[in-house]
């Protein structure tokens, strides 16, 4: 893959490339979050699918989303700490 030998890219072009990659990664992660939230919150909140989302269902979904983010952040912190601990024990 000749495009990997990038000695000809300027500093600015490299920065732009790296920014684009970071953006793509961020989009992919947001997408994953969206997919998981939809799945989990549908399961928790929509027990008898009606012809529209009623108020209580919408409230439930909003709360569910916030709790999912809380859970995600807690998992992230717990996992980071665990990795740190493992590193310190090596």
């Amino acid at each position, binding site marked *: 893959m000749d495009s990997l030998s990038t000695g000809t890219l300027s500093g600015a072009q490299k920065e732009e490339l790296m920014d684009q990659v970071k953006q793509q990664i961020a989009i992919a992660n947001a997408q994953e979050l969206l997919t998981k939230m939809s799945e989990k919150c549908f399961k*928790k909140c929509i027990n008898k699918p009606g012809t529209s989302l009623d108020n209580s269902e919408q409230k439930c979904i909003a709360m569910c989303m916030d709790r999912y983010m809380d859970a995600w952040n807690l998992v992230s912190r717990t*996992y980071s700490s665990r990795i740190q601990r493992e590193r310190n024990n090596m």
Partner: protein
Amino acid sequence: MSNTESVDPQLQDFILSETQKQRFQVLVHGLTDTCWETCMGRPSNRLDSKTEVCIMNCVERFIDVTTFITKRLMNTTKYRSDSPLEFQ
């Protein structure tokens, strides 16, 4: 790679670091999924402490399970490289 030029070191570092970051993200997504199923009751206004403790234990125990399985797979005769069963 047949060409003799090496990859730009700055980009190489970038790729390595982003790959590592993304591996972490993927694991957090998976762990959150699993531990939500294990620990989450009805969503309320905040995560109560019982749920928080459950999630933290869940993460730690899941890692323990992965470690246990890895070690045992490495040690069990069935899965050694001289056996006909091959893992890619």
